């Protein structure tokens, strides 16, 4: 009964989304206030029914309803309740429903917090969001329905993939989706502006906080995914340039460019076409990512489904939505034009380079990710594109970007007087270089060029981002959240760079057979293999090793890596034993039973790796702080507004 209720609720939600879209667009076009007034209630109803549908699916999982095909495929009676809930989004159909719920929630938030928007504009934004939601719901109902029954019902389920039976599954997809899907808001704002034929600084000010919050969630979501892969997969890697990882990273790069481009449009009314294009591209890449992981066009360890029929549906949806948006762009963007200029040394030019470099990076990653498809189609040479390409494709634009970032933070709008900043920044650079060399040689004992460059860049960024806030505080000025947020976020970037440089330059990994009683020496630490014991988990059995870690005569930690065998899916899983520290991680994983009491063991020394995720979290923190700035508080509709955006005479601008 409950699944049928959920199914029906989803259908109702689809109807309401179509109402939302239809009345919103028609009402704005024909200037019918009563039609436009339908959108907000429609949004509320849409959200209620989507939430109801999602709730029914969750209830089915918790109640172990194996008469539902989706539940039978992804759950099991021995699965702990926590994972039963998380299993809802563990596979294709359920994750789509999560996507839809998240979109409905964002739409509701926009409806609630955007009363200050001119009515036609607001109606158009909600309408576009409704169209996107309708598209996804149609896709779900037509090809990926989680509420399909299994006749006869299964006695028990197939269990959740053991790789997913982890705390991170509970939070990584929802947070990532909140970011991914949140870019739809910026997209909708862009479409609404293009439909109206008008884009001004107010538009930028409205769009900015929504985009920053979405960007923030995306940052945290990606960092979570990386952290999870690190401790769950047992190899100690934190990024694999897997197509699905790239599918989330490309929107992030574009979203980063977007939040900076919005700053220029808001402050100076410039970069309008850039900002529009970035807003379209950001969400387009999100949609593209959704397509890639579900259509079978690319293989990936992460792929949800390899179903060409579904793929075709998504492709048509992509064609209509992104194609439509880009067509609108081709039509409207030329008319936007900007009148103000800026000098070569100005904040604007730094941000222009920022835009270009980030887009180039995203483009190169896109090329690498899609290359296998082009190989078949255009009969290109069958070269395998992997980590080496992506690493260089990413570093090449990023290194200049970091250099520009250090200076650009201090550049003034329109005409930057860099003279006063040049000396302190260059001194800072010199000190950073010195510190980098000292760290590299004295602490780690080796210094490759790229290592020095990376450490210098990271340290210099730390210095550069703190310089301005500290100077302001010294002068007695208050720190606006915008300035503080920017400083924090860029500080986070510095930490990230240091973390990546440290771990990639100085990580040590050893695979070796060990018997109880053996001691391995890695990175100055001793790992003593004490012994093994058997462990019984709720739905698995495991062999657990005990490793005592010391440094000289100082006791560091005792680690318990496990090799688990999940009963239902008969799959083996490695749980690594990790010692977390401020300066390094120590990582032990059990490999294979080699017989005669010996096991293959992987021991890793990972210096500075935590700063990768800490850096990302601090970047996100900077984002939240910046969003709390007073100027983003809701603007009352009656507030006098300059730049001619006043009268809600939406209409159609020719």
């Amino acid at each position, binding site marked *: 009964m409950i699944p049928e209720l959920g199914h029906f609720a989803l259908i109702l939600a689809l109807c309401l989304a179509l109402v939302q879209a239809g009345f919103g667009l028609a009402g704005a076009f024909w200037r019918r206030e009563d039609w436009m007034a339908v959108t907000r209630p429609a949004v509320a109803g849409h959200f209620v029914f989507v939430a109801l549908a999602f709730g029914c699916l969750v209830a089915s999982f918790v109640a172990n309803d194996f008469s539902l095909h989706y539940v039978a495929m992804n759950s099991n009676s021995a699965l702990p309740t926590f994972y039963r809930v998380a299993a809802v989004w563990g596979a294709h159909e359920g994750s789509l429903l999560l996507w839809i719920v998240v979109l409905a929630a964002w739409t509701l938030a926009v409806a609630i917090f955007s009363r200050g928007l001119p009515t036609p504009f607001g109606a158009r934004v909600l309408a576009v969001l409704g169209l996107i939601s309708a598209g996804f719901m149609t896709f779900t109902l037509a090809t990926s329905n989680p509420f399909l029954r299994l006749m006869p019902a299964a006695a028990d389920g197939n269990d959740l993939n053991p790789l997913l039976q982890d705390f991170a599954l509970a939070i990584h997809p929802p947070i990532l989706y909140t970011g991914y899907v949140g870019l739809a808001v910026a997209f909708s704002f862009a479409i609404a502006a293009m439909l109206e034929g008008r884009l001004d600084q107010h538009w930028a000010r409205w769009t900015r906080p929504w985009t920053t919050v979405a960007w923030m969630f995306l940052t945290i979501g990606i960092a979570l995914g990386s952290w999870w892969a690190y401790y769950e997969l047992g190899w100690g890697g934190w990024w694999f340039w897997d197509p699905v990882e790239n599918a989330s990273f490309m929107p992030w790069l574009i979203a980063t460019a977007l939040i900076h481009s919005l700053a220029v449009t808001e402050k100076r009314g410039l970069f309008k076409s850039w900002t529009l294009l970035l807003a379209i591209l950001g969400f387009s890449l999100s949609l593209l990512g959704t397509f890639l992981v579900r259509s*079978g066009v690319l293989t990936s360890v992460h792929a949800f489904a390899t179903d*060409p029929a579904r793929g*075709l549906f998504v*492709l048509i949806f992509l064609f209509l939505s992104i194609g439509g948006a880009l067509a609108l762009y*081709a039509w409207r963007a030329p008319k936007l034009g900007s009148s103000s200029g800026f000098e070569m040394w100005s904040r604007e030019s730094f941000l222009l380079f920022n835009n270009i470099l980030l887009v180039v990076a995203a483009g190169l990653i896109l090329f690498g990710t899609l290359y296998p498809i082009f190989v078949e*189609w255009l009969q290109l040479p069958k070269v395998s594109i992997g980590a080496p390409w992506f690493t260089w494709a990413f570093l090449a634009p990023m290194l200049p970007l970091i250099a520009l970032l250090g200076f650009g933070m201090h550049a003034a709008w329109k005409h930057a007087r860099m003279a006063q900043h040049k000396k302190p920044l260059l001194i800072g650079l010199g000190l950073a270089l010195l510190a980098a060399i000292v760290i590299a040689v004295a602490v780690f004992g080796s210094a490759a060029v790229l290592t020095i460059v990376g450490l210098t860049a990271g340290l210099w960024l730390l210095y550069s981002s703190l310089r301005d806030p500290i100077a302001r505080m010294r002068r007695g000025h208050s720190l606006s959240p915008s300035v503080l947020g920017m400083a924090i976020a860029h500080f986070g970037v510095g930490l990230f760079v240091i973390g990546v440089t440290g771990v990639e330059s100085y990580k040590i990994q050893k695979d070796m057979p060990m018997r109880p009683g053996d001691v391995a020496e890695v990175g100055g630490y001793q790992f003593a293999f004490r012994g093994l014991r058997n462990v019984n988990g709720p739905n698995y059995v495991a062999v657990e090793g005990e490793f005592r870690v010391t440094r000289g005569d100082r006791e560091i930690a005792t680690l318990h890596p496990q090799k688990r065998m999940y009963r239902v899916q008969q799959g083996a899983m490695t749980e690594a034993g990790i010692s977390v520290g401020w300066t390094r991680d120590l990582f032990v994983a059990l490999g294979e039973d080699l017989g005669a009491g010996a096991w293959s063991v992987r021991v890793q020394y990972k210096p500075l790796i935590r700063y990768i995720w800490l850096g990302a979290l601090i970047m996100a923190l900077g984002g939240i702080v910046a969003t709390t700035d007073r100027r983003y508080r809701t603007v009352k509709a009656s507030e006098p507004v300059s730049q001619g955006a006043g009268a809600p005479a939406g209409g159609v601008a020719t």
Partner: protein
Amino acid sequence: MWKYVLPLAGFGLLVVAFYFGLQRNPSVIPSPLIGKPAPVFSLPNLHDPQAQVSNANYRGRPYLLNVWGTWCVGCRQEHDLLNEIAQSSPVPMIGLNWKDDSELAKAWLEQLGNPYAATAVDQEGRVAIDWGVYGAPETFLVSADGQILHKHVAPLTREIWERDFVPKISAAIGIPAPAAAGAQP
């Protein structure tokens, strides 16, 4: 002016590429061995390690070779279908137990049913390498004169069996292919 159309044009190209990409079947990895002679092997018999199982003994009639292991989830998925096929199909199925534990393998067959006319144990995986196997399960159809007619990667389903294997088997043994799917539940 033209630069504003560029993104749309680029996207159009991408859509075409994706459409093309969807036509490819990702599970069709062309096997270089199709049409070539099947490698001859002689391996210990799972149920009688002193005896050997060799595909040379099957010369003169078509046979199926199924690569499997107890560690392989997909093999578990297709096993019931293999049992059905073994009962209804005119060609014998040889099992290639790949990189597995023989005790576990025997227990598995005892518990779940044994569809194989004979099971060969490829502990080290050398024979699998010769056959171009890179994952389990894989199912090969070999002709009466020892040529590989077809290879299927991933668990066998009834649709794939009927679409890809049955016509070729019928052709191989010289009888017309059966009309419809039969009264299978």
